[in-house]
């Protein structure tokens, strides 16, 4: 079975890689197969992982007697009908005449997201980040004044402030404000360069992973002949 798995995987991998030469029927076949299989995977995992134990088993526990017997004797919790109703409302999006009902479910999703992100972004990404920027400008370690750490701290504090100044568009970037904005751009360019370097690293890692897998497949073929 493992050999069959590797063979199917290798053939599909080569079909996708064939796109690098040019678009072709093999690539299109693999691409469409991927779309269908992944959509079904998400549905199956979602239903078995969450819908059955966390909704059906809560509303009517005997319903899952032959699926999750461990949950069949629990007390029903009828308030779980609320997400069930909202979920069905969401599905009405597929039926054009009553698609407007899905807005109620979307409103819940968006209201929840807005409410929960308001507090989390305020704490972690705003107050938390300001707190992390309030570091000593003059850095001292065990052996006294540290010029390296001081320089780093200054870069951080000045970088954050100038970067924020660059994004402030309510005032014209002239004079001292403009100079600070220019420093901000340079800091951001270093940031984007670092991001580019890391992005290249990530993509190459993924390619190495696939080549490694194809190497395993070729090794399997050579193993059959030796």
């Amino acid at each position: 079975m493992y050999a069959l798995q590797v063979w199917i995987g290798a053939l599909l991998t080569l079909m996708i890689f064939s796109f690098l030469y040019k678009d072709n029927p093999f690539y299109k076949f693999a691409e469409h197969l991927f779309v269908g299989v992944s959509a079904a995977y998400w549905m199956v995992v979602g239903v078995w992982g969450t819908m059955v134990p966390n909704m059906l088993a809560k509303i009517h526990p005997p319903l899952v007697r032959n699926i999750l017997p461990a949950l069949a004797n629990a007390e029903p919790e009828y308030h779980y009908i609320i997400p069930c109703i909202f979920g069905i409302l969401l599905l009405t999006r597929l039926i054009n005449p009553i698609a407007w009902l899905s807005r109620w479910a979307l409103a819940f999703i968006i209201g929840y997201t807005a409410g929960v992100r308001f507090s989390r972004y305020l704490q972690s990404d705003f107050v938390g980040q300001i707190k992390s920027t309030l570091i000593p400008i003059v850095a001292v370690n065990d052996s006294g004044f540290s010029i390296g750490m001081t320089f780093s701290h200054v870069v951080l504090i000045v970088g954050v402030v100038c970067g924020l100044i660059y994004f402030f568009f309510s005032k014209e970037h002239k004079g001292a404000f403009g100079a600070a904005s220019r420093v901000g751009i340079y800091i951001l360019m270093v940031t984007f360069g670092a991001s580019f370097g890391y992005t290249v690293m990530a993509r190459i890692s993924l390619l190495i992973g696939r080549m490694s897998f194809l190497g395993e497949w070729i090794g399997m073929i050579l193993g059959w002949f030796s």
Partner: protein
Amino acid sequence: MRRRIPIIITFVVGTALILAMFIPHAPFSSLDENLSVYFDIIAVFAFILGGGNLIRVHLVKIQRKKVDWPYSIVCIAGFLFMLIIGFFKVGGPPGLRGDFLAEGSWFRFMFEAVFNPLQATMFSLLAFFVASAAYRAFRAKTKEATILLISAFIILVGRTPIGHYFTFWLPKQLEFLHIPTLANWIMGWPNTAGQRAIMIGIALGVIATSLRIILGIERPYLGAEK
């Protein structure tokens, strides 16, 4: 009613969650928990909606014999096959009990043989396009682009073992110019400064947008319908 009820839902849910942050006691704490559970369950219906929409789009494509319509059959066939073997846990422990990803199940086999290599290879294609884009488009046309390039070079070299061999010969006083040291410094200080400025800016945007959504000023879920 079509527009008013979703706005009310968003307001009630969003406000309840913000209040729960400031009043972490009953009934707000249990409201926060329950709303979170409802959100988790409704998320599964979103997967089902995605699957349903996929079927609808591809069935229309087949019916109207649009470009590449035969591949839509591949998509739907893959979707239905994966769905059936997943929902009925074919090949796994008898009946519907047990893990749908159990060793020996068809769903697990399809994940390892089809889904896994297809998704991995799709993303590994990006390595080639990143290389091509770097060759054709990455030009040091301006000061800012040059800074970006230099930063990217230091990261690309410094975050691999080869970086050590470029500058290992530097004397102790110039150790800070050792490429891996420079790469780590860039990530820890200028990159952090730039990313922090961006993060604070995004946080302010999220906080403002969340408030606007909760208060009904922005209604993305209502669409364009009057």
